């Protein structure tokens, strides 16, 4: 285990130095969630006037949860880009040859993704609070919100890692981005689930992201809702994606 941890530490450290010293990587991961927060919470603020919109809080808080989870997901995706870039530069191959415990690499990338997301999360939280966001949830509930976001982050990182380990190229970027983007937007982004109609309601009803989003909104509004279901969905997604990433790693190992 200590061997895995030392590999994880090395990979995480390198990944973070690369991410935080390269503005082209750092800025988009911060700007995009901020743009979504401003665009949705500011531009669509009248949506909470729709009859039946029963969220306990303002529209900024309602949208903040979506952007919070979205930033967690994209923190993972951007880490996936980093893994692909490591393969393109040849670093990953050298690391695979040198590392005594290769699964430590996945652990390292996951740790780096969490740290990267934490920076973005702090910035968007400050922005939302400056905009006057209502936070009705208490300590434990807010920890719950962070927990849900961490599960999303881990799921996206392992998904990005799985894709990168199979394709080994940055050209696979859309393969990482688009499923995550679509998965997030097929949840009740703008209004609560019961206000959605037609096909989007059906899709959102079956989308596991809906449970995560609704639980997050429940936490911030101080009215926890479907928390157990959300953590179960999150844990299942993490387990599935860890398996996907590990199988990708084994495939790479066979090719060494």
């Amino acid at each position, binding site marked *: 285990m200590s061997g895995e941890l030392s590999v994880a530490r090395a990979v995480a450290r390198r990944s973070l130095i690369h991410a935080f010293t390269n503005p082209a990587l750092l800025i988009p991961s911060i700007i995009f969630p901020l743009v979504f927060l401003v665009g949705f919470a500011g531009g669509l603020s009248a949506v909470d006037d729709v009859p039946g919109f029963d969220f306990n809080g303002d529209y900024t808080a309602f949208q903040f949860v979506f952007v919070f989870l979205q930033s967690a997901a994209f923190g993972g995706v951007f880490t996936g880009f980093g893994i692909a870039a490591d393969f393109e530069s040849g670093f990953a191959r050298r690391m695979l040859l040198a590392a005594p415990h290769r699964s430590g690499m996945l652990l390292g990338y996951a740790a780096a993704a969490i740290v990267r997301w934490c920076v973005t999360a702090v910035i968007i939280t400050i922005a939302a609070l400056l905009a006057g966001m209502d936070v009705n949830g208490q300590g434990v509930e807010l920890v719950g919100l962070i927990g849900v976001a961490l599960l999303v982050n881990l799921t996206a990182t392992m998904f990005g890692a799985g894709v990168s380990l199979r394709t080994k190229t940055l050209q696979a970027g859309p393969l990482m981005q688009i499923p995550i983007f679509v998965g997030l937007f097929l949840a009740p982004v703008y209004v609560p689930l019961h206000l959605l*109609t037609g096909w989007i309601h059906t899709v959102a009803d079956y989308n596991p992201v809906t449970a995560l989003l609704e639980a997050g909104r429940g936490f911030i509004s101080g009215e926890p809702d479907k928390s157990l279901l959300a953590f179960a969905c999150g844990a299942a997604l993490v387990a599935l994606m860890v398996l996907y990433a590990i199988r990708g790693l084994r495939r790479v190992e066979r090719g060494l």
Partner: protein
Amino acid sequence: MDRETLREIGIIAGRSVRRTLRQPALIVPTILFPLMLLAINASGLDVTKNIPNFPADSYLDFALVVTFMQGGLFAATTAGTELATDIETGFLNRLQLTPLRAPAILVGQLAGSMAVAFLASLVYLATGLIAGAHVEAGVGGAIVLIGLAMLVALAFGGLGSIIGARTGSAEAVQGMFPLIFVFFFLSSMNLPRNLIEADWFRTIATWNPISYLVEGLRSLVITGWDGTALWRCLVTAGAISVIGFVGASASLRTRMART
């Protein structure tokens, strides 16, 4: 401009169109991504039609023109990327051996992105109509809508070309995407300005030229022939086109002088 220059511009334009249309990876996302967002937003935000004074019967009608704007955004990245690639590969250096000057090269280079924008506009409109959207201004309005969408694409294409010519890097052009995206989100793209409750957002949207482009295009779909919205859109798109074209020509001239 003599006949020979026009012929040479035609050759560059033909090359630009062929090169762009041969890249499905460029065309497919340009067309599919805005349609996907339209499908999601039109369903997800359909309840907003219940907000008092909402100007359309369905959010699909209201949001249809956003696809044209996003198509214009892709035109910017296409135009800039193509120009930057030609700089990276040395094609521009070889063009310097011909009598063609910067503005003429630019006109030819923009043809590819305009072709994609035209194709995309037709698909957006057809898909919108099939999905149940209704153009209040009728067939004439639909034709004007396509025309204005092309002007918007030209305006954004010019801006993309400035970045392409100045940096000579396709990667830098791609990096510009978030910047223009910010302007989109800070406009009246998602709700009419009079229904935006946040004062600061309404102020930004009022100063944001993108709002006038969206509102002009949108007026044809949800209002009919609205002279004020249309002239504002025309003036804004025209001004951005001129700025883009003059700026890109100057940047290209500087780069050509350097090589």
